[in-house]
């Protein structure tokens, strides 16, 4: 009898054990599997993969996934990436950089020094020429050892050349050609499989033969949304493993999975750009009026909980050497607006009559921009300027930007440069201007005189992610080398994919 009882108990215990073993942790079933696909988000619809011209966060994130640079900043240190070693600056005016051998493009072709030279030459000819700073010429050579080298001829010694060559805008494309969505050939850890406007998604697949090793992830799906709550809703329901616009769609909800979040520093600039719809748009005084009319304090609660730092300069407040007043631009400067309007009214009587009407265009794939536009419209309305907000798809928005057929637009600029002067030059470049001034002070003065753009605020990126996420390591960098620069990881925050 005891034997029968024991047997029954044992059987039951084994059955229970088997069941437990088989089921495992319920939550583990929902955990992204090692080597599979992760769905994340982009702040807006990406439109370009050209390292030279990209400026939005989404474009920069994708470029950093698909292309590589000669150097990278890891923590506080510049480390070689496509380069095999730090620059040879024995001759400060002729810096030599060795190319890492055996690096392959996504189409299997070997990386050559010529690819680097062409890519960087294209950058030098663009309106982001300043990234190449003091470079006079670039050429590829083959050293005696047979190693391919890139030789930079400089007009003056530039100890920060390697830092500049870690900027995402210096990414190398095959033969320096402008990458397209169908033909984006880079050496990065991922390559683009598909970009679907219908599904609002870019699919990236891991490059098997990446020189730094294949990533954990097989695939990365990055989506963009037209409204904030849909991104949060996808994360909340478990459809996405990452969200940059909150972890829940509605108050009182809970995300399906345990959630962590991480926030970068506020370096993504939201600004107002100006078109050519009417002559007034090209008046620096008018742009100054717009800047003075806007009270940026009201924008601090926008977004989905990320940090928002109002700013009247394209250079992030915290990176500026001199501590600028955080109160600048918080409230409208009525006196300045009145003074500037008086000077413009004789040439533009519509300002006085209250009959001035402007068109403000926003990118519908950046959900917050419509609300920002509304705030700008409200600020201008207080001064008798009527503004109509037009929401356009990303591609239509980009087309209108090219034609200049608008008055104002809400734009985003992520400047990955570590140098404030380059950030200011980038702001001028956005408005199509090429500045000659070299010193930071003269650039600042010129900016405050011409207002090529009207900065509104810098925002951080706050990413919510599943606590059990594998394959992506978030490593925000808060260190500062020399106190003046921050790594791109700070901004892009998709993090570095974990390697095998």
């Amino acid at each position: 009898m005891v034997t029968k009882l024991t047997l029954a108990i044992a059987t039951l215990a084994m059955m229970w054990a088997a069941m437990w073993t088989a089921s495992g942790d319920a939550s583990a079933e929902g955990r992204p599997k090692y080597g599979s696909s992760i769905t994340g988000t982009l702040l807006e619809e990406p439109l370009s993969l050209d390292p030279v011209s990209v400026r939005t966060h989404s474009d920069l994130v994708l470029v950093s996934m698909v292309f590589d640079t000669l150097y990278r900043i890891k923590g506080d240190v510049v480390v070689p990436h496509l380069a095999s070693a730090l620059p040879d600056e024995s001759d400060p005016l002729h810096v030599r950089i060795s190319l890492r051998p055996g690096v392959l493009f996504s189409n299997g072709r070997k990386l050559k020094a010529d690819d680097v030279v062409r890519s960087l030459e294209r950058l030098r000819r663009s309106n982001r020429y300043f990234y190449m700073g003091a470079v006079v010429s670039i050429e590829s050579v083959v050293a005696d050892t047979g190693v391919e080298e890139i030789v930079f001829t400089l007009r003056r010694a530039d100890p920060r050349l390697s830092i500049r060559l870690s900027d995402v805008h210096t990414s190398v494309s095959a033969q320096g050609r402008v990458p397209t969505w169908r033909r984006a050939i880079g050496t990065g850890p991922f390559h683009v499989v598909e970009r679907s406007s219908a599904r609002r998604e870019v699919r990236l697949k891991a490059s098997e033969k990446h020189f730094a090793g294949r990533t954990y992830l097989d695939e990365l799906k990055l989506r963009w949304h037209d409204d904030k709550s849909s991104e949060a809703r996808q994360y909340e329901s478990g459809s996405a493993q990452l969200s940059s616009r909150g972890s829940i769609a509605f108050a009182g909800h809970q995300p399906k999975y345990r959630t962590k979040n991480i926030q970068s520093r506020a370096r993504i600039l939201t600004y107002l750009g100006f078109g050519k719809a009417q002559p007034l748009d090209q008046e620096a005084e008018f742009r100054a009026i717009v800047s003075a009319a806007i009270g940026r304090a009201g924008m601090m609660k926008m977004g989905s909980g990320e940090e928002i730092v109002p700013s009247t300069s394209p250079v992030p407040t915290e990176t500026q050497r001199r501590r600028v007043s955080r109160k600048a631009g918080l409230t409208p400067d009525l006196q300045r607006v009145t003074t500037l309007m008086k000077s413009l009214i004789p040439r533009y009587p519509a300002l006085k009559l209250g009959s001035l009407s402007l068109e403000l265009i926003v990118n519908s794939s950046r959900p917050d921009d419509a609300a920002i536009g509304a705030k700008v419209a409200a600020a201008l309305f207080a001064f008798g300027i009527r503004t109509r907000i037009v929401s356009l798809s990303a591609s239509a928005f980009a087309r209108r930007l090219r034609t200049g057929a608008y008055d104002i637009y809400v734009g985003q600029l992520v400047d990955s440069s570590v140098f404030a002067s380059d950030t200011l030059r980038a702001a001028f470049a956005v408005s199509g201007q090429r500045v000659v001034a070299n010193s930071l002070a003269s650039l600042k003065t010129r900016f405050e005189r011409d207002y090529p753009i009207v900065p509104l605020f810098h925002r951080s990126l706050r990413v919510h992610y599943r606590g059990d996420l594998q394959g992506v390591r978030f490593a925000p960098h808060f260190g500062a080398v020399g106190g003046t620069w921050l790594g791109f990881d700070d901004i892009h925050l998709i993090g570095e994919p974990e390697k095998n």
Partner: protein
Amino acid sequence: MQLRGRFTLWFVLAALVPIAAAALVSRAILTSTLRDDAEKARKTSEEEMRRTLHEMSEDLSQTVSGLAVREDPYVGGVLLDLETYTGDLPELSSKRVQETGRGLIRQLSLDMLYLLDHRFRVLDSPHYAPAIGEDGAKIGKRIKTSAETAFYHMEEVFVDNHISRVLMLESGRQLSEGDYSVAVVGGRRIDASVLERIRSADNLHVRIVLASGEVLVPSRKEWQDEGEISSYALSGVDGKLVAKVELRVSNDALPVLLEQISLYSLVLALAAIVVTLLLGFIVSRRITRDLDALVEATQAAARGDLDHQVEIRSNDEIGAVGEAFNTMMEDLEESKERLGMAERVAAWQEIARRLAHEIKNPLTPIQMSMETLRKTYAKKHPSFDEIFEESTATVLEEAARLKRIVAEFSEFARMPKPSKSELSLNELVRSQVALYQGSVDIEKHLDEELPTIEADKDTVSQLLLNLIENARDAIGESEGARIVITTARLPKSDSVILYVDDNGPGISADIKEKLFTPYFTTKHAHGGTGLGLAIAHRIVSDHRGKIMVGDSPLGGARFSVELPILSED
């Protein structure tokens, strides 16, 4: 104007006058009635307007009061969070508030909703997103000043992707707990939909005008600043005028109605004119037909046709007149016959008397001559031969005279009826004047376009001859004597006229009266019988013409003879 025309005209007037009077009276009554109605409608609508706006204010105040309680999750929930998080709402709380606000504004049918914290920072503004996060000190001040009374204010809202200012009825409340407070302001838009509640009639015009004079909500039809205008002030929180609702009742329909009345009256009048013309024509024709017959008969009687009877078809007074006329005509004919007989008898008596007188004249010398002869023969007078010669000469002369008298009388008495035919008077004149060529110089002024007449050539020739002889006798053989014969067509007449003028001594008025009387003569000494002009008169009468004597422009006498033109019938 003829009787028929006058009759028809009076008929038409009789129809038009009542129509015109009716139209004028209708217009006056309608104008008065509509104006009274308009005034009543205005007063009613004014009352309705006040009541509607008051009800809206009360309803809004109650709605907002219902929100500003601790138990309410929206306002009370925020106050709790402020207390919990020491004045700084976390992101989740803000999110919750904004989500709740979006639902609440729809649920409470509000057009505006502000939620402010103790620092008057705007926590929620579902109707106007740009206000979120902004400083709402002005809103807070309005809440405090309003003392929980509804007020009007111009608010910014988003309409079709751009900002507009709209008129809001607002009410605010504050909920406090310790150091923290939450203020809530709700509002409803005052726009055309509010006016629709007041617009009860098509002629009621309502509009909203801002204090600046700008029309915020226009009336449906064109506004005119005339007539009685009611105005209801919409005041702000400080009592100052923000806008006003203006109301007037238009009489726009009145001119249209008046015009319609005028138009219908005109149409009716035209129809009446046509009908009365027709009726008048028919009736007057029936009436005047008999009158026309009477007129024609009277004219016939005037022409001498006493046999003409009037054919009377009606049995009324006109018929009686016609019968009386016919009777009168019969009597007249009888009288005429009797008169004619009497005249003929008288005429013959006169002629007989005159003839007797004329005959007696020659008989006396004949008798005396014969008596003288008998006496002298009896006495065997020695001058018997001379006396015999003288007496027989006298007897023969007087016998010839008697013979002439008898011959003329026979001619006068025997005058046949004229045998009329187409005759050119001018040709006749030329032919008769030609007979006097060489003896008397007669001037002719003949109308070469003189129409032909219907006349007896022989008798008219005799007539002309008599007149020429008469004129020749008048002028004698003095130097400068003239006879002028003129022919012409009488204007507006169917007759021609013949003038025989002379520059003789003329004829006195008393003689003119008797000139055409048979045997009246001024030429006894010249052997005149006095029948020439009587024969001329008879001839003219037979031709249904006229003969007159008057003074000639030449200074003598003028004989005028009218003769009818040849009728085309």
